[in-house]
């Protein structure tokens, strides 16, 4: 499918943190939110989301609680903890630095050297 990007290793966690930082979500909701904010460009295998979610919960970056979805299904909702918010900020900065560096590196022209 054109317009789809391969996920870089480690970026799924950052995407999840971003998605959840916009408001508590259940697992399926996280997938939808990532699709929405990435312009449907990033493809994640649905089941692969859960190991990543649990890992973040275990690291204390997310907390989970059972609730009810919009269409009245029982679902587990995730939200950021304080540590999660901090980590999200750091990772975002790190990513931006990397992205800037990569962009400038790849944009370099022969005459600039």
């Amino acid at each position, binding site marked *: 499918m054109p317009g789809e990007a391969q996920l870089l290793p480690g970026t799924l966690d950052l995407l999840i943190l971003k998605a959840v930082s916009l408001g508590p979500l259940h697992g399926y909701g996280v997938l939808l939110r990532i699709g929405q904010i990435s312009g449907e460009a990033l493809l994640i295998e649905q*089941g692969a989301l859960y190991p990543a979610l*649990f890992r973040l919960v275990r690291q204390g970056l997310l907390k989970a609680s059972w609730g009810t979805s919009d269409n009245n299904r029982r679902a587990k909702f995730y939200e950021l903890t304080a540590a999660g918010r901090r980590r999200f900020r750091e990772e975002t900065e790190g990513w931006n630095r990397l992205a800037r560096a990569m962009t400038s590196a790849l944009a370099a022209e022969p005459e600039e050297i």
Partner: protein
Amino acid sequence: MRLLAWFRSVAAKFFSRSRAAVELEEELRSHIQLRGDDLQRSGLSSAEAERRARIEFGAYQKHKEESHEALGGNFIETFIQDVRYSLRVLRKSPGFLVAAVATLTLAIGANAVVFGIMDGLVLRLLNVPQAESLYGTEYGADPGFQSYPNYLDLRDRNHSFEDLAAFKMVFTGLNTGSNPVSSAGYATTGNYFDVLRLHPYLGRFFTSADERGPNSAPFMVLTWAFWHSHFQDDRTVIGRIVELDKHPFTIIGVAPPGFHGTLLFVSPDFFMPIVNQQQVDGENLLDARGSTQGIFEAFGHLKPRVTLAQATADANSVGAYLAKTHPKEFGQKSVLLGRTGLASFDGNVREFTAALMLLAGLILLAACANLGGLFAARAAERSREVALRLALGSSRARILRQLLIEAVLISIVGGAAGLAGSVVLLRQISLWQPFPGAALHLPVEPDAKIYVFALAMALVSGFLFGIVPVRQVLRADPWEIVKAGSSARLGRRVTVRDVLLGLQIAICAVLVTSSMVAVRGLLRSLHGNFGFEPRNVMLVSNNLAMAGYSGDQVPAMQKRMIAAIETIPGVASVGLVNNYPPLVYTAAFRARVFRETTADLKPSNAAANPFGYAVSPQYFQAAGTGLLAGRDFTWDDNKDAPRVAVVNREFAGAIFGSPSGALGRYFKLQDGTRVQIVGVVENGKYLSLTEDQAPAFFLPFLQAPAVQSFLLVRSNRDPQQLTAAIRNKLSGLDAGLPTQIDTWNNFLDVVMFPARVATMALGVMGLMGAMLSITGIFGMAAYSVSKRLRELGIRIALGAQRTEVLGTALGRALKLLAIGSAAGLVLGLLAARVLASIVYGATPRDPFVMGGVVVAMSLLGLVATWIPAQRALSLDPLILLREE
């Protein structure tokens, strides 16, 4: 506390496993439902929506597993699964389980016992405060710091010790009521307990302040053990007056319970001030600078920041000063400082336990090699199972982990059993009293260290033999194995298993060789020529000081005792020797003798340093020592007669060139006395069985009296009857004289002790080595027969002879046996050189030993390959080929 919390969280995870799993399932289901709802909204039928949702979700089980793992409970859970699975697998092969556990029990047990002994005798310090900085002088043969005046000089002139205490052993008649009993104690300097930083359990200790000249401090302090066993914990004992060798002493205190004196092996009954030693020794040693009997060991805490080397140099400079000031009396060349309590045994004990530890380590290594081989064989047999698990998606790591868990489970069970056995054995050893009359104290009670050690050994060995099949598993190609069956390939090349078995056989051959060398040496030393004949001789140990004799009463009483025992029917001859007969209690007196022409009697001018004895007429006859030339002593060789001596052949040869040439010649004693040689006797052993031939001389006991003596009674009568008769006669002379009567051979036990213990230990190790090689060869042979059943069947069907079948089936095992044994024999013979220092007569160049090892290893091979050989020969090719 942290550990506890961790454990609780793990336990909580384990028990709430089902809840977490249920929640996980629920969450994943809810995801699929939510997706399904969305798909339904987009117009799909409910069944189609659910199907699509499931497909989009991906590999449900895989994600569930991974999620579970991410939750953190997974490791413990799979670990427990693996343990359960391992237990099931092991239960299915009980024969293998029993063999492996038994092997490890023996190997780890042996290691734990040896470690316990090493810990107790070498590593553990004296049970006193700050024992790590306690150092003392080593007991030597020369009068150095063995005399009280020299000790005083060392104490006052050194700059390395905070304070220096000293002690010597005393053997006394202790009278707490009616009759005296033999009792062993320490005569110590007044500062002894202060230097040790001990506090009394009851009453008080004597101190330097109590020392006000000879015989000024008639006090005694009991050891807790003696107080407990002889005074039944009676607290009113303080202040009670008892008699030591008929002199009154006041009990002033009881030492703390864990304190057994400052010698490792001998636990005293009491402590008394050394200033009173004359009352129990019969002679005053406080002024005898040239004596070797005054002090056993001087010790103290090193000052802070003083190293052992500095202290040794310091002590040696004091020694040099003393040698210059008292050239006649001070003979020690250099002082060695050692750990207090071990000073005089340090080297031998250390070497021996280190050697034992090494052998025990070899046993464990051999056991690991053995089990490693078994595990590799099992892994090969289970290759189909492994292949299936790999094909079904199990990871290699998981399979390896499970194999390792199997190995560690076995090693822990084996280790626990070995530890239990060793604890029982060590308790026995620490209670062991091999010598009557000498309170042996072996502080080898097991402590926490040994549990840790055994556990570590078990884990290490588990991993050692567990990793042997790792390569095999990692290389396994599931398709190949599932397709071709487990007996796929039979390489001709050398495998890990072959190397392991060869190694193991070599180790076992080393153990068998050394134990044979030791046993042979001991047998030889038991039947060797000691220069006397201990059979049919009873020894009567007595100390007339214990019954209050002194001066001229002593030889007179000794003469009466000899005469009285001579009247017992069946007694062939009776002799007397002052102090100790040869090889008894490894105690002997060495003197310096000088040529007649030497004027300056300083140590460096001495002609020889022979053993000295004072004996009665008839002694040589009673001892069975052959007179080579000249005459025996007579009752006329008394203190009014000219001084005479009998010397051994070595003495005569060393100083006068030949036995006959020595007769009638003179030599000088340290005090300048000229002594004429009137007889020459055969050579013998005096202090220990392993000593080089030493010179010795004998003086008539009437010319060199001593309160302590042994009577030698040669008779063919039954020892028990004879003992009763001797006791009867002696109590007729003096009922208050404590004596100890036993056969000379029993007294020799002490001198034989190291050799016996060494032989016993090596014998056990050799036996274990032999058992290990049997199981190892058996395992290998049985495995190779079972792997090659089909091939053997075809060979038999094609008409192979029995020998050819056997050669095919067992050839490799036998070849390994031969190579391993040869290597082991060579190594064992090299190792046996070390043994020669402990076991008298242990020589590796002994055709008996060489032959014995070859025969033993061949027998082992025969025993071990018997069953597999039978199996190979009884094959029915028809049945076999049909089955495969």
